[in-house]
């Protein structure tokens, strides 16, 4: 059985259905980071991702009275997933490389015990983001929900409204393609390879 509404969510959803904006605000607080990151990994640009998350919350707020048994989280992510597909359909910036290196850089310089390690991590993350961006949409969303959002397969199936077997195969193919791309960078898996043989 896929993740059901936590008691927490159920209370908040019940109150939000009765028009309690404060309750819905708590749902936003709870889901804004995962939802935004899902959209970010799908569309690449922070501004577009924030637009999608904002619109998803707005639609969820408007439609929450129509939500019956389904868990709020799956339903919310389903709305956002549809918005991601709308975004692709409109063709806006489709295929554009993510522009997030500069996102969320607030405040002063960074202090770190190991700047070198940090630079490497940032380069690795860039390659990973690009490899995800290169995936076809259906595969991309499956792997994002799994490996970014940590959803179980049946939860992903309910968000995407596809059979479990489809989820399984999309995630597998997506991983294989990301792996293939990352392996083009000889250093990428180096650290892990060191103990493979």
């Amino acid at each position, binding site marked *: 059985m896929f993740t059901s509404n936590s008691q927490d969510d159920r209370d908040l959803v019940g109150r939000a259905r009765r028009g309690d904006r404060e309750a819905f605000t708590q749902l936003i607080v709870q889901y804004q980071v995962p939802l935004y990151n899902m959209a970010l990994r799908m569309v690449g640009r922070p501004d577009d991702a924030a637009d999608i998350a904002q619109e998803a919350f707005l639609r969820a707020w408007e439609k929450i009275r129509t939500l019956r048994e389904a868990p709020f989280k799956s339903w919310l992510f389903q709305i956002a997933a549809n918005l991601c597909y709308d975004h692709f359909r409109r063709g806006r910036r489709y295929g554009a490389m993510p522009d997030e290196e500069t996102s969320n850089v607030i405040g002063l310089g960074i202090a770190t015990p190991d700047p070198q390690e940090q630079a490497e991590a940032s380069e690795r993350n860039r390659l990973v983001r690009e490899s995800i961006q290169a995936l076809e949409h259906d595969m991309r969303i499956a792997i994002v929900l799994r490996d970014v959002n940590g959803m179980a397969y049946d939860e992903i199936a309910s968000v995407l409204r596809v059979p479990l077997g489809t989820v399984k195969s999309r*995630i597998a193919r997506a991983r294989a393609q990301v792996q293939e791309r990352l392996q083009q960078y000889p250093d990428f898996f180096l650290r*892990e390879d060191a103990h493979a043989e």
Partner: protein
Amino acid sequence: MPSEPRVPTEPSLEELSAFIDSELDEAAQARVAEHVAGCRDCQARLDGLRQTAHAIRGLPMESPPRPFTIPAQRRQSWRWAPAGWIGSAAVALLLVAVGIQNLHLPSGPAATSRSTSTVSGGLAQGAGAQKGAVAPLAAPAPASNDQYSYGSASRAAANVATAVDPTNSSRRLVLDTDSTSYVANGKMQVTVQLIGSPSTSLNSGDQGLTLTLVRNGVGVALKPVGVESWNGTPIFGGRYDLASLPLSSPRDGAYRLEATWVVPDGSGRVLQASVPVTITS
């Protein structure tokens, strides 16, 4: 029963991938495990997929660039909306002022405009300036705030603070330093324990952990370094050379060290703990 082949059938890509996620049924999970144990090729295939999944999971959770809002009234169907309605709704936008600034990537610079006991401040103002018409609300009621953000109320003699997950009391974020006061060129030893983390990773990005030294609303990010996993609890820490931090002058004064943990289970739940730190000249 005819005798089974010594090595069961080669697992498919799908099976290996689902195996990583423990999403096969029990029998299949066992069959793949057994095969992989005796097959170097499949061990290598599995490692590749696992490293790939791990690389994606290692992407830092980023914080949204702006707060998300809902209108004071539900948007009706557009047909019903009077011409001026959208504008007035925008004025009445409800600002969800939460302290998301310091939730962003652990490798990035961070500033924060608050201590753990209050929410809002910079965010609300920033958004107000940006949108013009937005009324900076009403930080969320203390009750909802407390639910996600805990201060250092439980601090005892040592410089330690604990935040407990309200939905899972066995999950706790424990932050401590080896002193409350340091000389400006001293070294501050920090330990962060992620008790009950769904992940055993010692990568702070995987764990969604950030560490920030804050004074007067300005923060400096410290990179939490994975130290060890003790009884399954990931422990982060570091000895930070205070002289090397880009603190604004005068460097001496009262700071707070804040640890923020976006629990890496996709729920977006945030635990936060902070301790006071004084730097003397």
